[in-house]
């Protein structure tokens, strides 16, 4: 059973019962055991590797020495043949034959040994990766457990204030609330801005002598004196006063 399956089984088993602590403790126990097992395996593999590499080195030394001997016999054979001493050459060749046979056997063995070393190195690499993965899984379980304890503490703290366990839903509501408030504030400030704009315009119009105070005594008196003309004038002033609101509904 893989380590993740074990942890998952554990999580499922306990989730329906109670107590995250049990899960945390057991998960850590399982992980610690896995780490110990993998470490033991790794150490054994490393020892084995050392042994095989030592064997390989010894075999290589033995073969090197034998290669020297083979070369030496070769020179003797060449020398004997050069002198026409066929019998001597044959005697040396008789010594050389088993050496060459041994060398071939050892060569095959060494190749086999090197393959084993390669396999073992791969196994060690894999175990090291596994160990690293297990250690980071322990880190995850520990950190998750700490965070969950903190979340319990935070939830308990908010119980007194009557709110539920803080969730993204509440945050979402708060964001919407704030957006609505901001929108309202923006609207209010735009309104204020446009009022200020109107006041500015009115002041400019008054300065230019175009705006007449409709309620002043002079105006009232003038209205009684020349009603028709002044009516016309009032309309004109209104048009100047709100130029952007006029065309659509008054023309």
């Amino acid at each position, binding site marked *: 059973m893989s380590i993740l399956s074990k942890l998952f089984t554990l999580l499922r088993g306990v989730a329906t019962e109670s107590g995250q602590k049990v899960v945390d403790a057991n998960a850590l126990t399982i992980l610690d055991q896995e780490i110990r097992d993998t470490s033991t395996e790794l150490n054994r593999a490393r020892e084995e590797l050392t042994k095989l590499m030592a064997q390989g080195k010894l075999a290589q030394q033995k073969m090197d020495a034998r290669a020297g001997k083979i070369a030496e016999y070769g020179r003797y054979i060449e020398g004997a043949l050069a002198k026409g001493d066929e019998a001597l050459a044959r005697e040396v060749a008789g010594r050389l034959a088993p050496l060459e046979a041994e060398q071939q056997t050892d060569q095959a063995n060494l190749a086999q040994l090197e393959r084993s070393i390669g396999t073992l190195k791969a196994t060690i690499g894999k175990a090291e990766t596994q160990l690293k993965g297990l250690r980071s899984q322990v880190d*995850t379980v520990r950190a998750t457990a*700490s*965070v969950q304890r903190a979340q319990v503490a*935070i939830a308990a703290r908010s119980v007194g204030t009557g709110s539920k366990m803080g*969730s*993204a839903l509440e*945050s979402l509501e708060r*964001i919407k609330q704030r957006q609505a408030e901001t929108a309202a504030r923006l609207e209010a400030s735009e309104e204020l801005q446009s009022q200020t704009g109107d006041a500015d315009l009115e002041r400019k119009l008054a300065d230019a002598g175009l705006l007449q105070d409709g309620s002043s005594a002079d105006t009232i008196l003038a209205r009684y004196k020349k009603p028709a003309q002044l009516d016309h004038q009032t309309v004109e002033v209104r048009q100047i006063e709100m130029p952007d609101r006029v065309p659509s509904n008054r023309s």
Partner: protein
Amino acid sequence: MPHDTRGLHALLASHHAGGDDVSIELIDSSDPVINLTMHAYGDTQVQVAASGGQIFISTILVPAEQVRDRDGFNDACMRINPINPLSNLGLTSIDGRDVYIVFGELSANASLDEVEEELQALAMNTIDAAQALKPYFD
């Protein structure tokens, strides 16, 4: 040197000192945890803990008891997860209650900028997820 929770708290606290976007507190116990209140994200509370080689960042999406149609919700979560950058949706048990969380993990060797990016992404993803999954909430 990798961050531990206290060291990370000090870094984050000094980074956000004087600002009003994030409130930071250290929930201090044998295993301290940083609690951040992200004001720009509707006061989303994010918990951060460093352990060994990892920094774990988590926030509560919704307690399972507030979800109607758990099967449909689970399906929707699995579909949202692959398109959620930098953070994951998960189900965990807090104090005996099933709770959906949004979480992310970082190397403890991550820079402060990377931690900040992860925090912002987590808060944003959580709000996005809450918005997308709203039809399933009571």
